[in-house]
């Protein structure tokens, strides 16, 4: 794990907030990655959603030019990965959003619904980590 770097964290976070604000200002869309992915599977208006997803994938590749290494993240056993992926997919669809849709955009709108969702997924994730790491 890379050492704690508050300056990079703040710069990166500000860029995330800027991207969400610009997407709303220019196209009137919420930068919620789970919603964008889910609607990419189903609904019309696929072009901008696909473009957003491609931008997300292109960024880490482009940043290698500036010396930011492209490193595969540490992952648990594949069975755990598969179960977790299913939970994240089903859960974000049922709950209408993820860390970006509820956490960044929803809280920025001061939506009580998004604040409740964010508190819920944060607390459950903390509980799961407490159980898997400390039990």
């Amino acid at each position: 794990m890379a050492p704690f770097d508050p300056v990079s964290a703040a710069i990166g976070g500000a860029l995330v907030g800027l991207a969400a604000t610009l997407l709303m200002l220019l196209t009137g869309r919420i930068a919620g990655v789970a919603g964008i992915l889910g609607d990419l599977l189903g609904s019309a208006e696929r072009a901008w959603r696909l473009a957003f997803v491609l931008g997300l994938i292109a960024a880490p590749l482009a940043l290698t030019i500036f010396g930011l290494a492209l490193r595969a993240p540490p992952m648990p056993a594949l069975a755990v990965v598969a179960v977790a992926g299913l939970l994240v997919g089903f859960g974000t669809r049922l709950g209408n959003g993820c860390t970006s849709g509820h956490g960044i955009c929803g809280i920025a709108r001061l939506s009580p619904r998004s604040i409740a969702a964010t508190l819920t997924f944060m607390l459950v994730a903390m509980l799961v980590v407490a159980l898997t790491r400390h039990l």
Partner: protein
Amino acid sequence: MPALVAFLCGFVFGAGLVISGMTDTAKVLGFLDVLAIPQGSWDPTLAIVMAAALAVSLPGFWLVRRRERPVLATVAAWPDKTAIDRPLLGGAALFGAGWGLVGLCPGPAIANLATLSPAVLLFVAAMLAGMATHDAWRRRRAAPPAGAALAADG
């Protein structure tokens, strides 16, 4: 034009995730591991990323809200749901469980596709399958009885 803007926004979003360290599952799990606080090994990165993102998006959305319409579209798709109901909280809880198991939420999972890590590919495939499963389940629950559906077809 909206697609180009969406690509650039996705790009800036992804760059922010990489620069902040949020594509690293170890840093995300290091934040979620609150029992590490008394041990002094807790990683506060995610809290700083959230705070910095909101420091921009809170005033940003407030300003955007005052506009009548988006720059490049006729209507803004502001979410209109307000109820704090069981699907919201149940869905958030399921999502949180999956997030806590691996340390990946949808944005960083997609950005990590660039690494071509087989485990990340599996995670994204399972996530899309989970989304499709939910949508199919919701359609079945919303669908009228079989006879009525047949009559409405064609």
